């Protein structure tokens, strides 16, 4: 992962292509947006080279956050930060390579299904979805829950176990077409995350050719780990953009809000609470820069994930209080805060991150890297 830097000409070009692509769609569903990004060459430009560059990822998420509701951004984020990198990682069958190319063109939408119906999301080692390998086939049974794009994807990357042992080598990825016999999809209930297509999957003897395997059997969790740091960085970059956007709006609202013969912004106590939010926002940016500049290791990404969730919740919670009742109106920050609580759950719950951080206490106390 390369460091966040001043925009290079390549990033400036990337941003221009991005804005052009988004201008062609305006208000859009996740699919229309994905199509536009693919058609405009944005997805191909983003994944060009060894590793999606942090500054392109930041440009993408900042622009999407400014224009679309959280659920729609989530739909794109999961694909760009995790599903596509896994799909495009290493040698692939003709079928898998074809789906990867179609996804880059925006013609195929992806979901990434790791969280299992049979286990806590924080303990993938216990997941219950099985993949039985035959000479030419793979047969899936089990279920997945809370999967972004479950209801909208054309292909679902499914993490399953091909061996019973509780070991990281017991897992593989299967690319399941959305119309595969034996696959059923149920939308998640509740009114949150509109546009994310989030839902639950169940597999009843879903039988596919072995050319639907993504990567080698035994490498499923290792491949996931290779890319999880990028997913967590994407979460941090998105959270940073969200903080800046909401704080800018809040600053404006405070300057317009009458309070004791002046404005709320003139009140010292209010200014201090706002300043605290700026500090939290900068903490997110600093940790993202730290992860970009470092080795991109798993421990650093866990520190980032846990910290981002806390800082974002603090910023959005304080903005709700600072804005007052108007925060609860349509499109207000109260709703955003409720949805953004997912930053402490999706892709790694804060408790699990802290457990991993504690396990590496000695490494983290080992002084500056």
């Amino acid at each position, binding site marked *: 992962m390369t460091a966040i830097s001043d925009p290079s000409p390549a990033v400036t070009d990337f941003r221009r292509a991005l804005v052009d692509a988004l201008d062609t769609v305006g208000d859009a569903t996740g699919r229309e947006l994905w199509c536009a990004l693919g058609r405009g060459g944005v997805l191909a430009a983003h994944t060009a080279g060894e590793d999606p560059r942090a500054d392109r990822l930041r440009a993408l998420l900042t622009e999407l956050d400014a224009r679309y509701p959280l659920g729609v951004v989530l739909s794109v984020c999961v694909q760009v930060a995790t599903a596509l990198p896994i799909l495009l990682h290493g040698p692939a069958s003709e079928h898998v390579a074809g789906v990867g190319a179609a996804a880059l063109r925006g013609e195929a939408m992806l979901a990434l299904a790791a969280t299992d119906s049979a286990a806590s999301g924080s303990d993938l*080692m216990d997941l219950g979805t099985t993949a039985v390998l035959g000479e030419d086939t793979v047969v899936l049974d089990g279920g997945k829950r809370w999967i972004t794009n479950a209801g909208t994807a054309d292909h679902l990357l499914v993490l399953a176990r091909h*061996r019973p*042992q509780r*070991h*990281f*080598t*017991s897992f593989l990825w299967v690319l399941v077409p959305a119309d595969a016999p034996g696959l059923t999809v149920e939308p998640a209930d509740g009114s949150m995350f509109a546009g994310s297509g989030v839902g639950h999957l169940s597999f009843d003897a879903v039988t596919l050719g072995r050319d639907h395997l993504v990567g*080698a*059997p*035994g*490498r499923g*969790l*290792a491949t996931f*780990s*290779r890319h999880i740091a990028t997913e967590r960085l994407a979460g941090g970059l998105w959270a940073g953009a969200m903080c800046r956007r909401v704080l800018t709006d809040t600053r404006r609202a405070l300057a317009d809000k009458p309070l004791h013969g002046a404005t709320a912004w003139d009140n010292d106590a209010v200014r201090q609470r706002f300043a605290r939010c700026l500090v939290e926002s900068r903490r997110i940016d600093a940790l993202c820069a730290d992860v970009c500049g470092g080795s991109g*290791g*798993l421990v650093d990404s866990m520190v980032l994930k846990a910290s981002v969730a806390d800082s974002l919740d603090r910023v959005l919670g304080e903005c709700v209080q600072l804005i007052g009742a108007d925060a609860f109106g349509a499109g207000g920050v109260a709703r955003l805060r409720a949805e953004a609580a997912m930053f402490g759950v999706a892709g790694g719950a804060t408790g699990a991150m802290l457990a*991993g951080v504690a*396990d590496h206490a*000695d490494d983290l106390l080992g002084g500056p890297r």
Partner: protein
Amino acid sequence: MDTRFVTMLRPFLKYAGANEITLDSSLRDLGLDSMQAVELLFAIEDTYQVSLPDELLTDTTFATAGNLWAAIESSGVGAEAGAKLC
């Protein structure tokens, strides 16, 4: 096992201390958890520029230092990789 392998292995084994790591050393008993096992796989593949064959990606391969070294050797890394320890 070559010295480079043992040096690479030691930071992943939080209970190994300064004790000798032998072919029979149980990696789990010495503190290798699942997340570190993944990182160890990356370290091996980066250090030796090999890819462990699919059939050797098993819990047995990661059970002892000797099994893991044997897997690395079978991926094409010879004794010339470093001085033999045991």
